[in-house]
């Protein structure tokens, strides 16, 4: 764009100056030859006007003569001595031939003055530059027009070309975003452009490889966990058998058996948790909704948990309320939160079920433990995040998936879970908000 503008400008400028110069030199040549004629004929001329009129002057040029007696002669009264710029007349009266571009009555003119010292006379011509200016103006207009057109055409072409070139990039960008967002089966359409087909092919190839890899990884965690289940079952059966004969064992063996039982149980829980989480990763999870009498459900869930004695408070308005929820998952949420309270919070002190103003319900599990520092409140819901308190690596230790599973189950229901510190004294309050339609 800039280039064409500059080009037009340069063309115009150089054309203008060269045209003007040409005009001038042509004019000057003419003027001087006319001056010679006047010099030769004026002294003996009885009719100077006629003489002037007989001169070779183009229609746009007006001759003026000053004779030796100081009388001005001009065929065109409009172009007489007053049409000449004073500076020019002065210069000529000092015997200096001059030329001058000036404006007369708003129009551009070129005045040339040739002194004729031997005769005591002078010859002038006033040339209209109108025509030239017109031509120049037209030229400049056409150049401007051309420049604008080429600029616009260039811009239009450029825009169209870049859009065409960029659209596939935009498509690629969108496809990449979709894949990053989890839609691993996103692919680019083939399209007609041969140049782009290379891009499309390699992108699709990459996406497929990525999808395969991710699915393989997800399957791996799941496969490993599956494989571990059978031997664990055998271990568990064997330890159970020993448990039924615990009394027959000497004391040290009993201690060893207790350790064995606890660790096998922990190992089994880990494998089950891993499998559950790998199912979330593989996207192979579905809510199995049931009609759930919420209040009764929470009471039962607490009763079946590791902390059955914890008091449960239910909002009066939620007493007979039925919601659509996945019983198994919600059951795990409450169980895990209670386990967590037991492990890190010194035991849950209260479970509350409240109605939320804008619809939905809130389940709270509170404890009287050390609470959760603000900096840890996101971290604890991550996988394998364990209580950061030092020395907590005892036998009762979890593996760090409990809260991560809570988060996944809650998220699947469209809800959210977070932790606060209790205002009234020490301890943490875990809150689960579920946007269930309360009927």
């Amino acid at each position, binding site marked *: 764009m800039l280039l064409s503008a500059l080009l037009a400008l340069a063309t115009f400028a150089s054309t203008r100056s060269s045209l003007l110069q040409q005009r001038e030199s042509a004019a000057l040549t003419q003027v001087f030859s006319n001056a010679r004629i006047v010099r030769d004929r004026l002294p003996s001329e009885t009719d100077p006007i006629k003489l002037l009129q007989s001169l070779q002057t183009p229609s746009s040029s007006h001759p003026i003569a000053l004779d030796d007696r100081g009388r001005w002669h001009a065929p065109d009264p409009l172009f007489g001595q007053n049409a000449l710029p004073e500076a020019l007349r002065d210069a000529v009266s000092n015997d200096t031939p001059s030329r001058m571009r000036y404006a007369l009555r708003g129009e551009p003119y070129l005045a040339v003055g040739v002194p004729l010292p031997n005769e005591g006379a002078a010859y002038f011509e006033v040339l209209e530059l109108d025509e030239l200016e017109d031509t120049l103006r037209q030229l400049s207009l056409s150049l401007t027009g051309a420049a604008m057109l080429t600029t616009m055409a260039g811009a239009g072409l450029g825009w169209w070309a870049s859009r065409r070139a960029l659209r596939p990039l935009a498509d690629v960008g969108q496809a990449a975003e979709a894949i990053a967002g989890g839609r691993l089966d996103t692919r680019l359409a083939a399209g007609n452009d041969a140049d782009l087909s290379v891009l499309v092919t390699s992108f699709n190839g990459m996406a497929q490889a990525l999808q395969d890899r991710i699915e393989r990884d997800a399957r791996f965690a799941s496969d490993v966990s599956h494989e571990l289940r059978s031997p664990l079952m*055998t271990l568990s059966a064997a330890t*159970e058998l020993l448990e039924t004969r615990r009394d027959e064992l000497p004391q040290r063996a009993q201690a060893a058996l207790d350790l064995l039982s606890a660790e096998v149980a922990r190992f089994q829980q880990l494998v089950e948790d891993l499998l559950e989480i790998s199912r979330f990763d593989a996207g192979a999870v579905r809510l199995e909704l049931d009609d759930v009498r919420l209040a009764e459900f929470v009471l039962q869930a607490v*009763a079946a948990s590791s902390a059955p004695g914890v008091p449960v408070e239910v909002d009066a308005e939620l007493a007979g309320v039925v919601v659509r929820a996945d019983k198994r998952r919600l059951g795990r949420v409450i169980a895990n939160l209670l386990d967590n309270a037991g492990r890190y919070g010194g035991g849950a002190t209260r479970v509350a079920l409240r109605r939320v103003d804008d619809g939905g319900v809130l389940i709270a599990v509170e404890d009287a433990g050390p609470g959760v520092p603000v900096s840890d409140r996101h971290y604890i819901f991550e996988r394998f995040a364990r209580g950061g308190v030092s020395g907590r690596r005892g036998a009762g230790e979890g593996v760090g998936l409990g809260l991560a599973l809570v988060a996944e189950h809650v998220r699947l229901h469209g809800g959210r879970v977070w932790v606060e510190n209790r205002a009234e004294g020490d301890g943490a309050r875990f809150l689960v908000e579920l946007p269930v339609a309360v009927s």
Partner: protein
Amino acid sequence: MVAVGTRILAVEDDERIRIAVKMALEDEGWTVEEAATGEAALDSFGRHPADVVLIDIMLPGIDGFEVCRSLRRVSDVPIVVVTARADTHDVVAGLEAGADDYLTKPFAPKELSARIRALLRRARAPDPATPQLNFGDLEIIPEAGVVRLDGSEVHLTKTEFRLLCELASSAGRVFSREVLLERVWGYGYFGDGRLVDVHIRRLRTKIETDPANPRHVVTVRGLGYKLQG
């Protein structure tokens, strides 16, 4: 308590699980017969019927569903199917094939023993003091374990019979799934409602003249099931 000499047939192709199961069940005092394939299981049962059959759904050769259906054609023996947790369709399919209950792998052997005990309890004749109950063309004789529809005897599994008796115990009363799970299967609140749903379906196919429009075993939306005359 359970009778000594109770025979359990365990149909399982995974040797490790077979070992675990045998160890746990024999510890309870029961006799365990093993079969690694469906064919072997049907063969064994044909020669000497067991008191309870445990079937893993995933078997080489004929699958567990087929074994279940084949057994049901000739017997009301209590059947527990074992499914892999991942596929929940297996549970419903197993129940529809005729199973009384299910377990998902991995299961604690303790759990298996508990289920089998519950099944054996159901298999025993119910309280003889319970009088005969009539609901239109439906006759229920609890002490004999017999049900008649329009005079002809209907063959129900022990679980189906127990379910019917529960519903009949308070005719017209609506029983929730949870209550039925508790009374019939011995599960607490977190039992699987599908056990009830599939058994109701099976019951209807046997005692309703038009199972799609049941007159006796009726669904009460959002509340549960009831029996009416």
